[in-house]
């Protein structure tokens, strides 16, 4: 009887392993940035839960005014402040990885942004240690004030990084468009078309070159705005203005995409 069951178990295991494909083979290995972004998303989710709990307990403390409710809210305050810092650390880590692989940006500008990210990370780690040591509401509220006074700095670092990323990405695409348009025109010349066809292609190429020129103007304007903002604090508003400006350049980029497709036909 035992032998029969042993044989059946073995058969079952063999059946399972022979029919179920190894899922790991199908999954694509995520990049280091992708992993960092997932970590950031998870940390943000945890923060939201802790923030909600903190608000509930703070309200409870306001109503009850007991030592027990104070103890609860102090613990929740510590947790939510630590979680807020962890969220920012994960966020800056993801940005750092993005910047490391960023193409189309000036090396010096990348290095400057990288330094600012590292500085912010260092500050946050110090703040984290202070919160970990804190035990009462006075110290925790003092650390909350300290964070609030530094929040604009962190926002500024983030939006400066995002601005550089947006400019660099549109620069990369424009460079690629310029390179491809030259190659296409070169191949048109080599194919020795008729005078009428060549004239048409030449006009198309010139129009494409003008479009690329316009995109470059938008990028230059964007870069000027970026540099002028570096002196001040980058805000969400200044970032949105930059995005709007680059948006006009992007529309031209899309136009260039359709032009080159027509030119190659």
């Amino acid at each position, binding site marked *: *009887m035992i032998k029969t069951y042993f044989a059946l178990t073995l058969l*079952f295991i063999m059946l399972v392993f022979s*029919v179920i494909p190894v899922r790991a083979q199908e999954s694509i290995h995520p990049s280091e940035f992708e992993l960092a972004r997932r970590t950031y998303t998870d940390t*943000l989710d945890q923060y939201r839960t802790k923030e909600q709990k903190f608000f509930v307990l703070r309200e409870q403390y306001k109503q009850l005014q007991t030592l027990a409710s104070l103890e609860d809210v102090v613990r929740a305050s510590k947790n939510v402040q630590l979680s807020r810092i962890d969220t920012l650390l994960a966020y800056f880590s993801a940005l750092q990885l993005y910047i490391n692989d960023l193409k189309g940006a000036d090396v010096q500008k990348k290095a400057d942004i990288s330094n600012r990210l590292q500085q912010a990370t260092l500050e946050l780690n110090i703040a984290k240690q202070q919160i970990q040591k804190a035990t009462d509401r006075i110290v925790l509220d003092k650390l*909350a004030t300290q964070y609030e006074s530094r929040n604009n700095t962190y926002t500024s670092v983030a939006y400066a990084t995002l601005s550089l990323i947006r400019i660099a990405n*549109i620069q990369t*695409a424009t460079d690629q*468009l310029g390179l491809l348009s030259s190659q296409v025109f070169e191949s048109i010349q080599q194919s020795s078309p008729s005078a009428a066809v060549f004239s048409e292609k030449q006009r198309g190429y010139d129009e494409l070159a003008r479009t690329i020129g316009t995109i470059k103007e938008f990028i230059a304007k964007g870069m000027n705005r970026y540099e002028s903002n570096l002196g001040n604090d980058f805000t969400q508003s200044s970032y949105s203005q930059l995005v709007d400006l680059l948006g006009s350049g992007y529309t031209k980029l899309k136009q260039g995409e359709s032009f080159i497709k027509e030119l190659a036909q």
Partner: protein
Amino acid sequence: MIEENQTQFIEDQVLWQDQTHTVPQHIEVPTQIPLHTPEQKKKKLLIIGGSIFGGLFVLTLIMMMVMGIGRNSMRLVPETTPKPIVKQEDDAFTKAFKLLQQDIVKADPTTGDLPFPPVNPALYIAREN
């Protein structure tokens, strides 16, 4: 020490006893009563084992259906008129154009990735936000 026969008094005497119908003082009760015969045991074990394997088999079938293995195995059945698979190589322009399209998608400033985390900058215990 408790007497075994609790109904019997110490100094009682038998007034009359029917010699033909004597009640035995101790009745031998078997300590282990066989509830099931070996055949019944075997049958029971077979039912339990069969149920477990049946359950596992059904579970495997469900897993296969969920993971789409059923569909994959159906593909193994040869078609009546197999179509030849022609793999077309992209030319240099198509390859470069696809790369350009990827760059253009990435360059869209409106689909901003990683905005600043929506954390509350003012988390005080005893101060209104």
